């Protein structure tokens, strides 16, 4: 038995030239939420990040309180990884129910690793390589009696590490970092479990993940994190130091991060009695001169609609995050959906324009947060960031941001205001004067949700209401003038332009790759600026025969998804249609491919699909 953690010469077999080499692999761990499969997935993702590989994960959260069946899927490798993989190359099944529910996710030729203490696979199933490992008993044996099956997940990590020849020093380092804070025994037990898994004799299960190209000299190291963390740290980088919220899944982890981090930065995060109090407290912070954040998921957003209208009327900056989940009502709290777009734009009474942005991947959660902060401050407006459950919980690796360049330091502007200061001028952008600023005119301003004149006095003047309404609208229109031009990926003109927003970015891009491979001229445009839209879309649209919006929401009463509805309203272009679904899951590449292929009347709607597992390619026994 070779243990990677026992001192001694490195295992010579490791770099053996006859080990089949694969560019990337999809591993699905299926167990119960209590089994720590997320931790294993997390280790693999972090390892990929530290190895300059790309990685994307996908997990399900049991919808029952006491936990239950759950999966964690990780796709890692050296290519460009844009989705977590439609189907798996390796399935690790902890229980019979895991096996039964997820066997079908395994590609032909893939490897089924099952816990032989719990699972009896179908003996007639010959399309995959089934390998039984006594995961439970081997873990108990390795770690010792008291801790029971705890550590089974780390045992599996060891198995996988051996199977894909992973970087052991990096992995053990990660294990130590993770459990280091706890007592010594825990680290030791974890390493024991890991070694035991690593030592399991399954010699013919050996692959080599292709090494990533070495990073360009001076390239930034990769970081690995999930979307909610990236968003929270983006807000910190954007200079947000104050916030208030109420817990709700999947929003809560952002508020928990901010509550923990902000005091270090001299800031405050308040847990309020409800979402209305939360947005109100956040607006109070903003009024005090410190751009603040509030956030929630669907139901909580509905509660913020009245106060959001006030922010537009009083022209107060604010960041509002919505981590979308399955709706309507309480809906499906632990599933993905993109069905709050229309509400984000139109959910408040009256004409209450505001900015809406949507990040396209985990990395973008970070950057869009900074962009939101800039816009909110510059235009003194509420900005809504529409993320979603999939982005929130997915782990990706990306280049560490250049913080010295990116970080915004923002202090309240308490400088004395000129005597000519008007809180609500008709002819220019104005940021409010926070309390503490001396007014040169001797007249102190009132911010208000009533219609008002330029000095903030309430008015019912028809002419002023008309002008102020136009002013508020034109201000939000002007936000688009600052956007960088939208980028089209793929063909610049042709049969179809696929449009997405939010977490569909990666799968659409992979689908576009396959479609182009199938010979159609297809482009992709991901809309990060939902409201106002980027300039110039009309000209881009004109270059394609079909404009197909791919979104995760319902087709609505008239047959179009929410972004498609918006685009049709703006451009009245009948070429704009949509592909929608509401199954609570992210798009598989093949779903997009198939449905676009149907619309384009391609003969083969499975073109380019990996029908066999990559692990099967070098034909083996």
């Amino acid at each position: 038995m070779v243990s990677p953690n026992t001192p001694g010469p490195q295992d010579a077999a490791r770099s053996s030239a006859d080990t089949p080499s694969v560019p990337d692999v999809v591993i699905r761990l299926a167990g119960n939420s209590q089994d720590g499969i997320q931790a294993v997935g997390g280790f693999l993702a972090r390892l990929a990040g530290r190895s300059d590989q790309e990685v994307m994960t996908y997990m399900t959260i049991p919808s029952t309180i006491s936990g239950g069946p759950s999966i964690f899927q990780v796709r890692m490798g050296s290519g460009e990884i844009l989705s977590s993989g439609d189907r798996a190359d390796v399935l690790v099944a902890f229980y019979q129910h895991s096996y039964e529910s997820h066997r079908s996710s395994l590609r032909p030729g893939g490897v089924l690793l099952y816990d032989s203490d719990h699972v009896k696979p179908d003996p007639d199933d010959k399309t995959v390589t089934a390998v039984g490992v006594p995961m439970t008993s081997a873990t108990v044996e390795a770690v010792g009696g008291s801790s029971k099956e705890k550590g089974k997940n780390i045992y599996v990590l060891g198995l996988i590490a051996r199977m894909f020849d992973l970087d052991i020093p990096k992995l053990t380092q990660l294990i130590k970092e993770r459990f280091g804070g706890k007592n010594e025994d825990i680290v030791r037990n974890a390493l024991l479990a890991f070694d035991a898994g690593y030592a399991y004799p399954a010699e013919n299960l050996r692959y080599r993940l292709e090494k990533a190209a070495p990073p360009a000299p001076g390239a930034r190291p990769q970081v690995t994190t999930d979307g909610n963390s990236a968003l929270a740290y983006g807000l910190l980088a954007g200079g947000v130091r104050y916030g208030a919220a109420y817990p709700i899944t999947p929003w809560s982890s952002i508020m928990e991060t901010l509550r923990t981090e902000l005091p270090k930065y001299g800031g405050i995060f308040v847990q309020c009695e409800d979402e209305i109090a939360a947005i109100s407290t956040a607006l109070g912070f903003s009024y005090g001169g410190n751009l603040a954040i509030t956030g929630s998921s669907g139901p909580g957003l509905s509660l913020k609609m009245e106060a959001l209208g006030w922010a537009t009327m009083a022209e107060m900056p604010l960041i509002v995050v919505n981590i979308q989940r399955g709706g309507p009502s309480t809906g499906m709290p632990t599933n993905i959906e993109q069905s709050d777009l229309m509400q984000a734009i139109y959910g408040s009474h009256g004409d209450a324009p505001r900015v809406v942005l949507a990040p396209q991947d985990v990395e973008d959660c970070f950057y869009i947060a900074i962009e939101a902060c800039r816009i909110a401050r510059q235009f003194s407006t509420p900005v809504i960031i529409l993320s979603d459950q999939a982005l929130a919980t997915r782990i990706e690796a990306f280049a560490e941001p250049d913080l010295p360049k990116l970080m915004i330091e923002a202090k309240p502007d308490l400088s004395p205001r000129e005597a000519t200061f008007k809180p609500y001028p008709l002819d220019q952008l104005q940021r409010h004067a926070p309390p503490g600023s001396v007014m040169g005119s001797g007249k102190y301003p009132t911010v208000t949700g009533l219609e008002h004149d330029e000095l903030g006095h309430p008015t019912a003047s028809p002419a002023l209401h008309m002008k102020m309404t136009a002013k508020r609208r034109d201000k939000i229109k002007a936000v688009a003038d600052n956007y960088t031009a939208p980028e089209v990926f793929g063909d610049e003109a042709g049969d179809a332009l696929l449009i997405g927003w939010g977490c569909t970015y990666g799968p659409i891009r992979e689908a576009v790759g396959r479609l182009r491979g199938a010979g159609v001229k297809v482009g992709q445009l991901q809309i990060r600026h939902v409201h106002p839209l980027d300039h110039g879309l009309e000209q881009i649209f004109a270059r394609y025969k079909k404009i197909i919006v791919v979104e995760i929401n319902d087709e609505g009463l008239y047959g179009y998804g929410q972004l498609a509805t918006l685009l049709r309203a703006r451009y009245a272009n009948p070429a704009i249609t949509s592909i929608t679904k509401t199954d609570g899951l992210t798009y598989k590449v093949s779903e997009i491919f198939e449905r676009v292929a149907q619309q384009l009347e391609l003969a083969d709607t499975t073109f380019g699909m990996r029908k066999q597992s990559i692990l099967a390619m070098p034909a083996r026994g």
Partner: protein
Amino acid sequence: MSTPTLATPPPAPGAPLTKKALTADHPTWCPGCGDFAVLASFYKVLEKLNYPQEKIVTFAGIGCSSRFPYFVNTHGGHYIHGRSLPFAAGISLGRDDLHVFVFGGDGDGFSIGGNHLVHTARKNPRMTYVIMDNSVYGLTKKQTSPTSPIGFKSKTDPWGAYDQPINPMRTLINSGATFVARSHATQVNHMVDMMLRAANHDGFSVVEILSECVEFFEGAFDGAVPRKGGAWQTIELKKNDGSPEDAARHDPTDEVAAFKLASEPWPGKFGVFYENKARPTKNALEQKLIANTREKTKNASDLELLSKTFARMR
């Protein structure tokens, strides 16, 4: 009276805050409305406090009484109905150098805003809240409010109100507000005294002022107006001088005694019902947390902090 967190220096001598400087738009209230007297008293309070004008904030929700900020020449605003307290908590917590005053009505504060009152109170942010209670919805023209007495005839209770009204003093005492007082818009000196004490209290201080709506609930508070045959009884506070009279005086730190006092029959007494100087403000607690945390991180700069966080994600 000593409030260590009120760090703002007084203005240069020779430039005291005057009523003139504090006066803004002419009030749009009906002639005779009780709120005028509250406004006049508030001017006096600010003159006495003499804070730098730019450090004073006057905020409100929606209602006749909530128009207050338009009539006071300080920074301020007019928020949405019932939500001014969490807004003001944001102002206070984010800007510990300011003096935050919130005004509102009984509907704004006890009906739609009732939960915010309770939760703001238990957080104890440093600010002063003045409720102008006219026991009716004024701005929307005479509907029952949560303090309308049983039997009050309004547009929504044409046969007289049915629902048991809330007892503001009891509610406030129970909520955790650390300073709770009650006054009457016909008693200017008393109002000034109460608001002044409230402003000087280091925590969440509330003064409820009975302020008549002459348009929709005339005579509502005559029961406490001597010249209308009512009884004006103020609360005598314990002096702790060991005198025999002192036994009968009210101990404002005693919650149960305050609750009992608040349960007396209408019109009850006026003055300070409850005061708790021991409970730290949320402002102080959060500042302490910041100080402790920053000590642990050795006052690292924001860039250093965030860079370390990203380094841990490598």
